[in-house]
């Protein structure tokens, strides 16, 4: 069995923002009982023993955890490469300096659009100016900076300006990832899925930017998988390379696997080692033995692993089916219908979005 390379530590689902594409679970209130500092310190040490080398500190907004600096210091002390995935709201100079001193390796800041009006509208709160300020502090402290923008129908037309902004901020990487439809994004899917024409234009912008910025800034672009012929190799395979620990201690092979009707595994009850190597949850879709046709006899089965289990469940009601994104899937017409609807002239470009609630769990 492989050892995991990466731990996604979702420290809290509380967040000052209210992005309508947030992949956090709809049931945010169910995660109020967060692991405490001692529990996270233990989880980090167990993860390292298990072979984890990279630790992504995420959420929600990880800066809302008062013990973040302590967790970072512990993680870097264990030899983990630490990456903070943040909205940057709350990344004051003082906090940044403390995190830097604690050894944090990399910072990833999300921006919602290319200009303050649209960015603040999508984030549901005035935050653009603080993000820009925080990005400057990150570079001043000598950190590598990734700017992450989740793309969708309502901001993708500003892609060239988004890349320009990342350049102005001297980002080392810009991640332009189309929305993945989980959690709140699934609820808002109709208003978020871009048209084929929007994607064609985006593709041109990305190619020109990647060529122009080669050697200066990495440009990473992720298509919406509904438009792909083959599904994404979700997490590099179920329980093969990565694991997630949710704020309440639930351990998951993928960050949205809590949506599946599978037994739970929680770090409060079991060691991470048992969870990774033996728990029914992690064993369920490991390898290729579980696969149905057409995956079972497909020569891409070790390339994309039959796609995403959560998406298969969400679209077909059965987590063990081929991801309907795959054009070989017997359920592919579900995805075709969704794409057709997104491209019908009747659908407006900008529609109302359901924001996820702010500060989940503080109510």
């Amino acid at each position, binding site marked *: 069995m492989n050892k995991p*390379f990466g731990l996604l530590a979702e420290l809290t689902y509380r967040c000052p923002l209210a992005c309508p594409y947030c992949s956090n679970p709809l049931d945010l209130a169910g995660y109020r009982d967060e692991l405490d500092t001692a529990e996270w310190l233990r989880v980090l040490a167990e993860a390292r023993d298990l072979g984890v*080398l*990279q630790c992504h500190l995420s959420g929600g907004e990880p800066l809302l955890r008062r013990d973040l600096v302590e967790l970072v210091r512990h993680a870097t002390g264990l030899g983990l*490469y630490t990456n903070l995935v943040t909205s940057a709201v709350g990344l004051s100079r003082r906090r940044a300096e403390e995190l830097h001193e604690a050894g944090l390796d990399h910072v990833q800041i999300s921006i919602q659009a290319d200009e303050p009006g649209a960015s603040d509208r999508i984030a549901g709160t005035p935050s653009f100016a603080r993000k820009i300020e925080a990005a400057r502090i990150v570079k001043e402290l000598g950190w590598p900076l990734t700017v992450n923008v989740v793309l969708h129908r309502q901001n993708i037309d500003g892609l060239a300006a988004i890349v320009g902004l990342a350049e102005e901020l001297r980002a*080392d990487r810009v991640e332009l990832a189309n929305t993945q439809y989980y959690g709140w994004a699934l609820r808002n899917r109709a208003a978020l899925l871009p048209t084929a024409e929007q994607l064609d234009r985006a593709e041109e912008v990305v190619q020109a930017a990647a060529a122009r910025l080669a*050697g200066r800034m990495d440009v*990473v672009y992720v298509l919406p998988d509904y438009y792909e012929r083959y599904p994404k190799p979700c997490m590099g395979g179920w329980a093969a390379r990565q694991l997630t620990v949710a704020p309440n201690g639930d351990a998951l092979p993928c960050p949205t696997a809590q949506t599946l009707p599978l037994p739970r595994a929680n770090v409060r009850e079991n060691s991470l080692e048992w969870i990774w190597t033996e728990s029914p949850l992690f064993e369920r879709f490991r390898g290729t033995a579980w696969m149905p046709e057409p995956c079972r006899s497909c020569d891409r089965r070790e390339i994309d692993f039959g796609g995403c289990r959560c998406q298969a469940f969400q679209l077909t009601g059965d987590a063990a089916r081929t991801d309907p994104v795959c054009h070989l899937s017997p359920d592919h017409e579900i995805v075709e219908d969704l794409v057709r609807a997104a491209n019908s002239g009747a659908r407006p470009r900008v529609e109302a979005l359901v924001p996820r609630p702010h500060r989940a769990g503080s109510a």
Partner: protein
Amino acid sequence: MSSPESAVADAVSVSGRPRLARHVRLTFDPSRERHVLLRPECVVVLNRTGADVLELCDGRRTVAGIVAELRGRYARVAEADVQGFLAGLVDRRCVVIEPEETDGVDRRCVVTDPEAT
């Protein structure tokens, strides 16, 4: 003098001076008993010779110099293999090749490599 970008296109010249890209960490992983390269979005697990090459990539030694040092340790070291290995890591943005100095002489690591000429 070539820029780092054109160095990527030219593959890796024997007079280039490789070093780890900024923000890339070379470390030993006791649980896998292997050296690894760490970047925000990837992990590269190295074999023993790969780790030896990278430990010599300090931005001062040339590729030819590194090959000469490795020949002191291993019976067979093919320059083309070292170049290919480094080119792969340049592609993955883990290694940067500093261009050769304008006078072409590496004063810190003068080596004569009979097979290079």
